[in-house]
């Protein structure tokens, strides 16, 4: 009788089951659940980032059909896509907007995991792979930004790579490696193109697979307050179909937002990059780099006998590193105690980012 219950219904499923024995998989899918409590909404953002990554892959492959990654042709080919190719403007606009929304949802996902302490034992590796995915998402953004070879992208790349060059010891060789020479030229464009369409997607897919496998293996993290509840008060949502359906609904909303943004606010192309023209007044990077950009504007030329940019690079580097290794230094949460400091640090970081982002927008 029990044996019979496990058998999948439907022709295709039973055909597959006969050959591959799906009972384990189906059992797993049946048991999979998500904790239900006040903060359940945050569990959707990883899935949103995943959806947007898929949108990026599809729209990116479509752009590849017309894009030409050389100094002479890059700008012209993007112009061609935007003006001549049917729906080219839409595909490009979707790719740009989806990139921004993806970075945004990756950030929301990261902060929600941080505040709900989803990174603690035994999920440290899920956090580290997630952090790697965040870093590559930003690297995707930075490299993709240069590909249209317009004025803004040219100077953003000059500044961004120059900041890398400030890092002690490895800065100089890293700068040359990124730029493909000492200056930002067509060689830089070729390299960024390669990073953007081959190297980053490869690493991203490997990390993403590990990230998702670990989540499936361990189940979804329960926050501290939820864990302390008596078992009969722990409410859960079955993953299939309840949670999956809700996630699908959110995906539908996200796709609609993306469509509205892409159609009504088509991404601009600007002017072609000219290595022999001045940086335009009011130049700004993408919003997710804006807070760093603004901090660099405020740093004086010299701090304690060190160049201001170097101090900025070092401080940012240390901050990011500390954030990345939070499972190592957060001993309190690991012991099962509330770590308020962690929450305050998180709130401080969010306020810091928001304030400097706003300053970046309103100040000249």
């Amino acid at each position, binding site marked *: 009788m029990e044996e019979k219950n496990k058998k999948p219904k439907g022709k295709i499923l039973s055909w597959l089951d006969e050959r591959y024995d799906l009972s384990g998989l189906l059992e797993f899918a049946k048991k999979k659940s998500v904790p239900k409590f006040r903060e359940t909404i945050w569990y959707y953002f990883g899935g949103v980032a995943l959806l947007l990554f898929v949108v990026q892959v599809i729209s990116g492959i479509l752009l590849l059909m017309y894009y030409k990654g050389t100094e002479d042709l890059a700008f012209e080919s993007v112009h061609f896509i935007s003006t001549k190719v049917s729906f080219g403007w839409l595909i490009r606009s979707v790719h740009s907007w989806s990139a921004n929304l993806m970075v945004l949802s990756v950030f929301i996902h990261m902060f929600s995991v941080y505040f709900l302490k989803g990174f603690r034992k035994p999920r440290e590796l899920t956090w580290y792979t997630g952090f790697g995915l965040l870093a590559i998402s930003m690297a995707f953004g930075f490299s993709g930004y240069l590909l249209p070879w317009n004025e803004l992208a040219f*100077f953003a790349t*000059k*500044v961004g790579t*120059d*900041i890398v060059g400030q890092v002690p010891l490895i800065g100089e*060789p890293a700068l*040359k*490696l990124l730029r*493909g*020479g000492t*200056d930002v030229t067509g*060689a830089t464009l070729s390299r960024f193109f390669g990073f953007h369409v081959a190297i980053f997607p490869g690493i991203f897919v490997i990390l993403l697979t590990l990230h998702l496998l670990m989540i499936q293996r361990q189940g979804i993290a329960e926050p501290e307050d939820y864990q302390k509840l008596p078992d009969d008060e722990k409410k859960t949502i079955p993953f299939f179909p309840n949670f999956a359906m809700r996630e699908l609904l959110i995906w539908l909303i996200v796709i609609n937002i993306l469509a509205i943004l892409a159609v009504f606010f088509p991404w601009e192309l600007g002017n072609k990059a000219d*290595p*022999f*023209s*001045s*940086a*335009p*007044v*009011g*130049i700004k990077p993408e919003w997710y780099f804006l807070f760093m*950009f603004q901090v*660099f*504007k405020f*740093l*004086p*030329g*010299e701090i304690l006998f060190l*160049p*201001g*940019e170097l101090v900025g690079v070092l401080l940012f580097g240390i901050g990011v590193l500390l954030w990345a290794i939070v499972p190592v230094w957060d001993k309190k949460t690991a012991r099962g105690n509330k770590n308020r400091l962690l929450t305050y640090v998180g709130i401080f970081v969010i306020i810091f980012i928001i304030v400097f982002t706003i300053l970046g927008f309103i100040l*000249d």
Partner: protein
Amino acid sequence: MMNNHSENSNPGKTKRRDFLNILLGGGFIAWLGALLYPVFKYLEPPEVEEVKVSNVKIGAVEDMQKDSGKIIKFGNKPVIVIRKKSGDYIAFSAECTHLDCIVQYRKDYGQIYCACHNGRYDLNGRVASGPPPAPLKKYGVAIKNDEVTVFEEAS
């Protein structure tokens, strides 16, 4: 991990195994090195022979308006040439010493300005305000037979 029994009964065997492990491990690292070295070397861009430019002619004296600036190509480097209100010419490297953006002449400030991070330099190339850590490199300007030439000053 090691089986205690075999370790006690035959210490010589363990040593031999360790030795083999070191040999194999070292061999593997050397092999990896031989594999990665060409890759890293490949990624390092070769030094391209640059055409040495020592001076650039930029036209007649009256080609540029007074109180204006422009970027010229000096070999593969951008150089900013400014004609002051007085009519004198000056020239500096146009690469901001802060983070490598290209500067411009701002009439309203009467200064050299970098739009990336609000760096300002005076008309001697010295930092006037903002984040730049060092002055702009100066270029020489010579006027001969009504023709303006920018040249690299001996450092």
